[in-house]
């Protein structure tokens, strides 16, 4: 069933001009996915936040300073050439994470993971988090835990799953309705539905009727300048994080502000001016 159907490719586009940095996506994610918390969460390098909101600045002095916020879930990389060899998946020694070719979603199986953390080393987005502690909820608070996501134990890696359990439930619902199609509205991640600014759009990048496809207009052809890169956006305002590495994330970002778009990747002196108006890959064939 997986192969004889057209595969989905779930992805996201986040409008950084709408994002207010309020943090609702992060909390919605924690609440949805049974993410624990501990006494001190101010060390952001050991604080599990599947969805983390970064603060970007244009580094100009007062009063020309500008600020933007960038929410960063797992990028669900397709890997070089979008063949499914994500940086993290290919390195996991115990097959505790895999690339779902039917959805494009990168999994993480807590009961399989034994905590070598190679995937974390391989991920340039710091989207993967390690359970340095056993999660402990204050007395009684474990009553709010959701049965749809299994709580983790100490010593394993976890990360954003694009709320895969919502896909599972949407699929069950579709089956119960005798359908094979999952309507766009039936599978939305917790951050998407929570965002009060409506900055996040989620859906199937392969499905032209989905809003995310319409915004991103992913180019199916490899970038002629860098054949590892597939699925560049044909929308001039849309970019991906560290696109040049060839990780092929399925999370796209959108901004009217040039300095924000430029902060999505590294450019040598002068390179940005050459590429800033080049978008998609077919456009300069």
């Amino acid at each position, binding site marked *: 069933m997986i192969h004889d159907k057209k595969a989905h490719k779930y992805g996201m586009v986040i409008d950084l001009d709408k994002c*207010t940095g309020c943090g609702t996506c992060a909390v919605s994610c924690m609440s949805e996915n049974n993410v624990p918390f501990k006494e001190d969460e*101010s060390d952001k390098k050991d604080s599990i936040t599947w969805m983390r909101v970064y603060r970007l600045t244009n580094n100009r*002095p007062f009063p020309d300073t500008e600020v*933007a916020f960038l929410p960063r879930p797992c990028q669900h990389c397709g890997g070089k050439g979008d063949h499914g060899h994500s940086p993290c998946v290919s390195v996991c020694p115990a097959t505790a994470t895999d690339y779902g070719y039917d959805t494009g979603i990168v999994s993480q199986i807590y009961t399989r993971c034994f905590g070598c953390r190679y995937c974390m080393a391989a991920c340039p987005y710091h989207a993967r988090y390690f359970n340095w502690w056993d999660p402990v909820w204050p007395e009684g608070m474990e009553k709010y835990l959701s049965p749809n996501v299994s709580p983790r134990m100490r010593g394993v890696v976890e990360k954003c799953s694009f709320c895969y359990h919502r896909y599972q439930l949407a699929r069950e619902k579709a089956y119960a309705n005798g359908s094979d199609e999952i309507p766009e509205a039936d599978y939305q991640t*917790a951050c998407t539905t929570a965002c*009060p*600014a409506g900055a996040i759009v989620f859906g199937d990048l392969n499905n032209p009727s989905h809003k995310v496809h319409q915004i991103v207009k992913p180019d199916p052809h490899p970038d002629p300048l860098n054949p590892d890169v597939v699925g560049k956006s044909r929308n001039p305002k849309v970019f991906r994080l560290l696109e040049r590495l060839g990780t092929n994330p399925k999370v796209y970002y959108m901004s009217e502000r040039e300095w924000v778009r430029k902060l999505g990747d590294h450019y040598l002196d002068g390179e940005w001016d050459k590429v800033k108006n080049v978008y998609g890959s077919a456009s300069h064939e």
Partner: protein
Amino acid sequence: MKVDRRSFLGLGIGAVAGIAISPVGAKLTDDFSIWTQNWPWTPVPPDGEVSYDRTVCHLCPGACGISVRKIDGRPVKIEGLDPYPVNNGGVCLHGIAGLQYLYDPSRVKSPLKRVNNRFVPITWDEALTMVAGRLGELRSDQQPESLACITGSGQGSVPGLFKHFMAAFGSPNCLTMPDLESWLVRTAKTLHGDEYTLGFDIDNSDFILSFGAGVIDGWGSPVACIQAMGSRRQREATLIQIEPRLSNTAAGADRWIPINPGTEADLAMGMCAVLLKENLFDPVFAQGFTGGFMRFTAMVQKEYPLDKVAAVTGISASDIQKTAIAFAKAKMPVALPGKGRGEGAQNLKEFAAVHTLNCLSGNVNKQGGTFVKPMPKYLSFPDPLQDTVALKGSAAAPLAGSVQELVTRVGKSGESPVKALMVYNANPCFALNDPSGVRAAFEKIPFKVCVTSFMDETAMVSDVILPVSTFLERMEDVPSTAGLAATVVGLSKPMVKPVFNTRSPGDVVIGMARALGGDMAKSFAWDSYETCLKQVTSKIWGPLARRGHVVLSENPPVGSVETDFEFLAENPETMKPEGDLEFTLIPIDNFRVPPTVPAPSPFAIKTVSDRILKGTDMFVEINPQSAKNLKDGGFVTLTTSAGSFPVRVHFNDGIMPGVIGMVKGLGHMLDNKYVSGKGVNINALISPKIEPVSGMDAAFGIKAGISKA
């Protein structure tokens, strides 16, 4: 026969061989692997049937509709309710974290009384009897007016019950904490007379001139505001943000105009002067201008000439002129008062001056404009039965016009004029400026009852704590206030049975009144709060219970409103930060840190940036240009006339040189390790300063010094 080495060898090999071809090895290997995958201390949440239930969030004045996902009746997730007239599916982090408040470690689990500085659990009957005994003494001593009451918000049937209680008891001293709504009501009262409040239709406005209002930083009804801002670009509406610091709102605005802290009122007056000079005010709306308009016009022209305002505010004269003209020429302009969240210490002059801009623009009671709307009147309490004691007490002059004034008065007096105090849904010992002064004043009050869900700073200094259910455990009407164009009354319903031995606050008030007996009990003849709620909301109860919410005054007020300029024409003094130190310390309202009640949830604290809080260290923002010999991240001592605290500096280019910004709402001291002891409460660094014309604390910021620790 001799048992030798070889026999043992045989024994050993036999045993190994026997085990080897039995299933023990394979099975134990597999089981061992499974054993290491399921540790007994990792919780396994029980599965079950999914259901969704709707209610209303009361964590802030926003009053969003929320949907609670339950598994076999057990709430597991809060989401935004769609459709709902306030938030249309949106929700904020605090609402989502609402479930954490249910099981918060600092919840009060049963009624408590203080014995030798420790709290001892008592039964509800004991607690109510004790409260009634102490309060009854005041009435039998013929001084019911010495009971004071502080509530968080003034709206809704529960604050209504407290007012009802105070009236029946015979005390005029019922005060509310200074939230945005209370400022708006005061502003409306000053300019338009009693029984009005203000609302802003930022959803439809095409030009929003914000005098520091953190439209996406928690001002007003936060989710509704963020949604309005989310659609702003599509609507091509302009947002101009005037404040000393590049807040998130400023960062998202079309233009950020930095202004010297504390001079917003002067700027608004200056802009009024520009509009009046250029004749850019709406003549039709001006027909409603009554007292003092001419005097006001003359005064602003004289006292607020452009160059003077430019010098005071630090904004160039041309910017002021251009902005004022752009505002006046916009189709649907709105000027927003209320710095940050718009609550706490603000000042009436600024609110009035900013709202005067709205009045001059004439975009009042129109779509995309400012609404001068009558106070919601959906509640109808029966008149309280007042005996002679009550009548006499009620007639006494109120002790103060604001909570801060009351605290100051008690603090200064030898023997407290307040003999007993009830606090509900408020945490003045944390949220007011100079909290240690507030605590000292409270210590003078012989008897304090705290009606609260959490053991917060105010509960800790109380004599009796009456624990109330959280918003997810109780039924209550929740009117949206917070500057929305239309008032929405939502009905919150219990999503789960009370987790602890708590009661709904309405039942607590009724219980207290009944325990007092006599006419007090007769004034509270309801058998429960639910009956009371149905009766007092009888005008809207039907649709409220059926739909879960009612939108009041679907038809907004139309036409000109009488506007009185007397107050501003007197040119009251602008409330500037006090002191003569080098820097100005201003509070920052950060969306992720709720400012007052309840304290932040563990999730909310988790999202706080490490440039605000690191471990227990508090950061303050400072512009690197004025940092001199300080190091980014270094430890410093921050000193004001009110106190001195060790903090760390965070270099932020987005704050005016000379200004120090500090996030408000941290530094709680609660029995909750996830929240407590983190950072510094900025209020402890600010001494209150009463604005004479309003009686309110107007100390938004204060002069401060900073030195290497």
